């Protein structure tokens, strides 16, 4: 059965980002989480593993991302590989894909690689397809249903496209990016967390890898997105409802 690699990212939990003065973002009180989309990737990897397969959880990040390893392992992965270096703290998609490809190429035997459709922080939706290119393997993105053939060796995937669904087949090795609706990720229990602490973790340092290329996407500014409006609030009394509907009319949009 297949050797599956699930890639994940340890990201800032956007719920903790505060708005500072002048549209700035305040990251001083942030907490981190395993990117939501990657929880689906890990869940799907354990589902595809079947009897006798393996799941390796893989991430690249700064040493602080070590917290994510236990989280990923508590979600059913057998082992974790961590490309850890302070230089990996803010990689762009091309750099992340390059690091992951180098780690996989020389260290992790694989049949199937599963990534989330995008990351919870940048949501560039590039690492999966770029990783497939770097490894020279086929890529199937935005998959909502994945089946490993009973006889092994290949997969069937339903990918969501604009006009509906495209059902495709590919032989191993192959990379798939998955949509959130592909499964409902487990919520790890106490036992899962305890077991996760006993699972093997391999750490790979920057100096063990070929030199990291320069970022190809430069962030010039990051400001608070302006979504706030001044909300006029109403109750549920008949006169409130009437005023509310009148306000709709007056804005000239109810007709």
């Amino acid at each position, binding site marked *: 059965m297949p050797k599956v690699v699930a890639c994940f990212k340890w990201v*800032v939990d*956007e719920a903790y*980002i505060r708005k500072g003065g002048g549209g700035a*973002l305040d990251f001083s009180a942030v907490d981190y989480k395993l990117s939501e989309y990657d929880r689906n990737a890990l869940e799907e990897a354990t589902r595809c593993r079947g009897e006798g397969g393996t799941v390796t959880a893989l991430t690249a990040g700064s040493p602080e991302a070590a917290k994510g390893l236990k989280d990923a392992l508590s979600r059913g992965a057998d082992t974790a590989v961590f490309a850890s270096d302070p230089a990996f703290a803010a990689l762009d*998609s091309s750099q992340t*894909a390059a690091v992951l490809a180098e780690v996989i190429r020389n260290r992790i035997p694989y049949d199937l690689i599963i990534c989330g*459709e995008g990351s919870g922080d940048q*949501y560039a*939706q*590039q690492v999966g*397809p*770029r990783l497939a*290119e770097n490894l020279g393997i*086929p*890529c199937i*993105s*935005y998959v909502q249903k994945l089946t490993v053939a009973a006889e092994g060796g290949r997969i069937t995937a*339903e*990918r*969501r*496209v*604009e006009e*509906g*669904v*495209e*059902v*495709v*087949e*590919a*032989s191993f090795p192959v990379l798939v990016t998955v949509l*959130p609706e592909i499964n*409902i990720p487990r919520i790890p229990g106490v036992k899962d967390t305890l077991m996760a602490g006993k699972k093997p973790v391999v750490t790979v340092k920057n100096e063990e890898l070929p030199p990291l290329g320069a*970022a*190809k*996407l*430069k962030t*010039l500014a*990051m*400001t*608070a*997105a302006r*979504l*706030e*409006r*001044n*909300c*006029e*609030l*109403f*109750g*549920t009394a008949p006169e*409130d*409802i*009437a005023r*509310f*509907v*009148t306000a*709709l009319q007056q*804005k000239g949009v*109810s007709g």
Partner: protein
Amino acid sequence: MAGIWIFAEKKELVLELLTPGGELAARQGGKLTIVVPEAEGDPADYFAAGADEVVLLSPLAEDVTLGAWLPVLAGEIRAADPEAVLLAATSRGKEIAARLAARLETGLASNCLSLAADADGTLVMERLAYGGAALQRVAVMGRPVMATIPPRTFPPAAAAAIPGREGSVRTLPPPPADTVRVVARKEKERSAQDITAAKTVVCVGRGLEKREDLELARQLAAALGGEIGCTRPISEELHWLPDNLCIGLSGVQVKPELYLGLGVSGQIQHLTGLRGARLICAVNRDPNAPIFLAADLGIIGDLYEVTPKLIEEVKKIRG
């Protein structure tokens, strides 16, 4: 050599990309090239809308994916060496863009809301990050500058702006099949309605208790002359509505005149999908629901109590 390339799988998406693409090409004085499947209409329409060169992709065999064009596209773009390549951020477009960027060893700005040259000519793109909480300004360090742009971000370039305008047309022969093979195509269950074009959208969220209660939202939408949409849990976890009605970062983006949320709490990922709405209204029994921060008008109350009253009042006013 200067130049702007555009790739999209549908005619309307090419026309949308011709709006920013035309501006960039005019600014740098370069050629504007579009790449589109042959079935997507008459090249004359693209010339009229500002294209200088149309590269047509021959029809593919049934079992071949659009991704099979990747090596051909990479070769064409390498040879032409344009300054920028713009692609529509559809599922296929986003995958092809990322794989092309890897092959061309350049940067890609994904899901851009705007793109413009700054004072010294650098292309600067704006996009959302952190689930929509942040606006990120980015520049690509590499050539070509690549960007994907979601459908309906720009209005289509006027198709008859320059009548009789001509250009060159090339047709590329079909590429060899790649290793991913299409075994079936399914028109998914989709709503016949197109909420991205609706002037009024009534959106249901987790506050809705059961599937049958969608009828309440439908009645309000009908009274307002609009369509219904939903938040992600309604389509993707509960499957009460098809996912082309799911509004948000990973769903559709809507720009109606009126958005009315019923039992929608207002997660940032959802709010991101309606930031273009002119008037945002919300009904929620939780006064602390984040949607009230993003709304213009709000009713604090139970949607089951409020919605029938709204339907009645709207009918009364509109006769």
